[in-house]
């Protein structure tokens, strides 16, 4: 696998020979993965296979904690975002993230979205108002909250809070959004609405999602990577992974025989 930027231009992001260690324990082994622009790529696999570890490498979340180290490259277009001279803040400003449990800021709905704009230097109130509305519409939340934008974010339901977190990530117009099991804490109705939203979002932004839920991967993703024990066992178009996988472990996992 080459990491030459010239050859990665069809992809939004490309992982190359990525190894990850928690202390002495190797959590990811020689991972290679291409993430296509404005498509949904899903990471599936049993608990502990390293899919969340891989996802969190994309916005350098591991840098916040001591005791881990990693080698390899993750190219975001022509920039190796793991480069020692690349500021993690720059990476996080280009790649947004939505977490497993909705984690809105303990502020108003409006302020949750406006905050990301403000730290990007946008100060004009009318510009912020416009972008907040656009983000809320983009996250299919506008109709529900337009009359109570200044209420606390915690007054929303769990599903609404997660859509608010998506709006928060969207408002800053990232090139890519990472979703870490975004519906695992939500009820089925909220889950469907988040999934519909992601299908809408991929028109404008590249999505990488970790999911425990295989049906969810088949419903929304274009590509799926099956991971097991820190390695990517198989990576292909989603329908191939679920109907016609080349690897026996992949077939066993997607048919529910283990995991």
């Amino acid at each position: 696998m080459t990491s030459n930027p010239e050859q990665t231009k069809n992809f939004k992001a490309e992982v190359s020979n990525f190894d990850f260690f928690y202390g002495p324990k190797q959590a990811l082994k020689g991972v290679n993965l291409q993430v296509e622009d404005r498509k949904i790529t899903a990471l599936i696999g049993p608990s502990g296979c390293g899919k969340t570890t891989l996802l969190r490498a994309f916005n350098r979340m591991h840098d916040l904690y001591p005791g881990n180290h990693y080698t390899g490259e993750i190219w975001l277009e022509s920039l190796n975002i793991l480069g020692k001279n690349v500021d993690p803040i720059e990476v996080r400003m280009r790649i947004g993230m939505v977490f497993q449990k909705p984690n809105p800021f303990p502020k108003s709905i409006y302020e949750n979205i406006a905050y990301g704009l403000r730290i990007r230097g946008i100060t004009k109130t009318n510009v912020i108002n416009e972008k907040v509305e656009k983000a809320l519409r983009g996250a299919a939340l506008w109709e529900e909250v337009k009359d109570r934008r200044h209420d606390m974010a915690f007054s929303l339901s769990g599903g609404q809070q997660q859509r608010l977190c998506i709006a928060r990530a969207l408002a800053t117009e990232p090139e890519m959004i990472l979703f870490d099991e975004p519906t695992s804490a939500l009820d089925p109705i909220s889950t469907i609405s988040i999934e519909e939203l992601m299908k809408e979002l991929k028109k404008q932004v590249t999505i990488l999602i970790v999911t425990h839920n295989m049906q969810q991967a088949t419903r929304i993703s274009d590509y799926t990577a099956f991971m097991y024990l820190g390695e990517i066992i198989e990576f292909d178009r989603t329908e191939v992974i679920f109907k016609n996988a080349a690897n026996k472990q992949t077939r066993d996992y997607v048919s529910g025989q283990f995991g």
Partner: protein
Amino acid sequence: MAIENIQVLRASIKKRKLWDQVFVVIAFISLFFGFAILMGLMTQLFLQGATRLNWSFLTSPPSPRAEEAGILVASVGTATVMLVTMVLAVPIGISSGIYLQEYAKKGWLSDVIEINVANLAGVPSIVYGLLALGLFKQQLQLGESIITAALTLSLLILPVVIVTTREALKAIPQTLREGAYAIGTSRWQMVWDHVLPASAGGILTGIIVGLSRAIGEAAPLITIGALTFITSLPDSPIKGEFPFISFSWLKSDFTVLPIQMFDWVSRPQPAFQLNAGAAGIVLVLLTVIMNGAAIYLRIYFRNRIKW
């Protein structure tokens, strides 16, 4: 299940529930003792002091005649010393707490500092008085002044503020920090814009608890040589001529309510005992108000923020 087995089962449940009742009785008696003694003391204090508690008592300077003496100078002293203590201890304490919790690398050094700070919170207050006597009064030549007292009391409450700030920050879920980082904040923006506002209730509580400890302290201030009898108020902070604000009051002599009380209690005439009781009521009320504010703030912030 056989009928005799059920009998055995019921007997065993009954036996275990008996211990429940025994414990409730013991706990209630313990609670009653603590509460009754406290109430007795408070009642005695109020009965003793209430007769002297009137407007002129609050607004008169001390006097050799018990019935003319009041707590004006001591109240002003307590208020100014507390104000300066707060100004000194709060920024330093919160900054230290933030540094230890959010910035310092976790390792043996931070462990040692943590243990030390926790221990400092338990050091007897008179030890701080001795330290202050040597450092502020003798080395820095600050005298028996308001600034010396405030420096002493801020040393006393600094560990409390640091520890409660750390605890309040620790209680903030890591998901909030990650959420802030994920949209591109620097560490300082994460702390200042998100973690600090979210932990404001806990931090404020710590500050108030610290101050309500400091407000009742007499020992360290007597150690630095605070006067027990003083009839003049500190210099006014506002002056008629430019620059209109003066900080010379920081160097003024002072006394505080606990020292005033101590002075009156140690006099032989019974009339002064009444004064001591009345000053005690004021001091207790101040502490109750401060602790009440701490509880209110904690509830207010807890209701506002749910994780």
